[in-house]
């Protein structure tokens, strides 16, 4: 299946800054990305420090910036960007959402139907007549998403959609994004809000100094089981094993385990760690530097980062049988 959006060999620097060091990014330096793609229905989340190039990358994907080199391809429709602080026109919410259709001179009935449908998708039907600049941060974000949705984009790009809004609004925005992905849209968003990133992402893409970095965490979908009175809880991985985690009550749907918290061993050694799973090595990727990434199938897919020396000592090969160990406290629930 061809991706909804992809880029290859992308290079970009702001005019007059081509020779600046990537470390001096600050919105002014080089962006260099070998490849990135998002499939239909996939939510890709860009994470990274301020100035690492997330916003610039989104603007390149949206066609607001022209790359110095490389290819940005959007298939089957536009890719629309919703800004971090979306600009809403000084008119009603309805007029804001209808505007992209009105400038395309669509029949009045079509405009009305599509506008109301978009407002319904983001849960703002009740606020259609409200003066848009008076909305709260979360409502503005949803109104801006609706204004993009009326154009029925294949790809929705969002710059920090959950920053500077309250918890209830974050949940509302996350619901909207999940439902859009479920409708077949690709969603690419940037965020500093890691809980939100972990809850939403089908794929996390870390960025640093204008480059993509390998992801450092395992994200497991499932549900937390009621811990009763115990100090330790359990998390049921979708289609996989139960793992031990800190006791927590609530609607947790995501467990996150850092790759370097996972210990690999050839035998079932006795340790204080609660999680001990047996699995088969699916892949060993020797990355640049000292570390290797080992993918293990133990009822769910887990990736561990180990040194090249450990790969040799444990004789890790595809198909090797291994024990995977990590502490319950290494599991974070979102």
């Amino acid at each position, binding site marked *: 299946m061809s991706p909804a959006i992809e880029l290859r060999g992308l290079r970009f620097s702001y005019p007059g800054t081509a020779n600046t060091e990537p470390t001096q990014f600050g919105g002014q330096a080089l962006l260099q990305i070998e490849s990135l793609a998002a499939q239909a229905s996939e939510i890709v989340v860009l994470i990274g420090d301020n100035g690492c190039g997330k916003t610039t990358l989104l603007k390149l994907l949206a066609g607001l910036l022209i790359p110095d080199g490389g290819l940005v391809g959007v298939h089957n429709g536009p890719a629309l960007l919703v800004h971090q602080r*979306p*600009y809403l*026109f*000084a008119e*009603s919410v309805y007029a804001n959402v209808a505007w*992209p259709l009105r*400038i395309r001179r669509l029949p009045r009935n079509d405009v*009305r139907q599509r506008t109301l449908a978009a407002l319904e998708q983001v849960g703002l039907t009740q606020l259609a*007549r409200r003066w848009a600049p008076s909305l709260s941060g979360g409502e503005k974000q949803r109104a801006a998403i609706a204004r993009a949705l009326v*154009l029925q984009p294949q790809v929705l790009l969002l710059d920090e959609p959950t920053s500077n809004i309250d918890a209830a609004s974050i949940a509302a925005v996350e619901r909207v994004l999940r439902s859009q992905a479920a409708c077949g849209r690709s969603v690419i968003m940037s965020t500093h809000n890691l809980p939100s990133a972990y809850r939403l992402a089908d794929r996390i893409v870390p960025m640093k100094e204008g480059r993509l970095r390998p992801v450092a965490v395992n994200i497991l979908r499932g549900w937390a089981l009621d811990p009763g009175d115990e100090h330790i809880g359990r998390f049921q991985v979708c289609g996989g094993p139960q793992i031990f985690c800190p006791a927590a009550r609530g609607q947790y749907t995501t467990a996150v385990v850092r790759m370097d918290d996972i210990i690999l061993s050839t035998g079932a050694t006795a340790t204080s760690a609660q999680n001990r799973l047996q699995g088969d090595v699916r892949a060993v990727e020797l990355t640049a530097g000292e570390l290797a990434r080992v993918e293990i199938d133990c009822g769910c897919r887990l990736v561990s980062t180990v040194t090249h020396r450990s790969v040799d000592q444990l004789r890790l090969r595809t198909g090797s049988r291994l024990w995977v160990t990590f502490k319950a406290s290494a599991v974070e629930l979102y």
Partner: protein
Amino acid sequence: MNLASLIEALRLLVIWDRELAAITFNSLHFAIASTLIAALIGTPIGVVFAFREFRAKRTVVAATHTLMGLPTVVVGLLVFSLLSRSGPLGGLGLMFTPTAVIIGQAVLALPIVVSLVYGGLARLDPELAETLQTLGATRLQRTVKIVREGRIAVVSAILTAFGRVVGEVGTAMMLGGNVRWYTRTITTAIALETQKGAFALSVALGIVLMTVAFGVNFGLNYLVRFRPGNRAI
């Protein structure tokens, strides 16, 4: 000036004297026409200054700001040199006609419109332009929307320019020649009538001019607080 002049001035206003009406009409006609011309040319230039980067932008903007304070007689002289018989446009025979006054006042109003539109729009959220681009608006649609979003700044700029030209005397006098029933404006008439010692008409015209100035100021104040109500869906 004495009490009798004031009473006569009020009488002229109450009966809406024919000459008073003609002079007022001329003033408003010239000022509205020149302001409209300046607005039509100056607003898009202000939009370009606010949202486009180009070489020497700083210099051009600084020059435009400076031209806001252009003395009216200098503008009069400049346009006079173009329109007089020996000037490059002398063949058009426009000197001492309403058209000449309108051209001069439009030149006077243009830097005011450009500078104030630029200043107002430059303060708009920088993400507005990108938002319009990402939503697929054409260049014309973007310009119209930007002007709409910055409408208070744009209308304020136009009203300020109107206030300046309606009260100026230099260009109207030099280019219009203060011809009775033809190019005489409120300001040129006040200058003339006062010199003649005919204070009544001067005072009456002064009251009209002040009323216009107050009207423009009230309009500006209203605009600053203006927020349209919800429209039907």
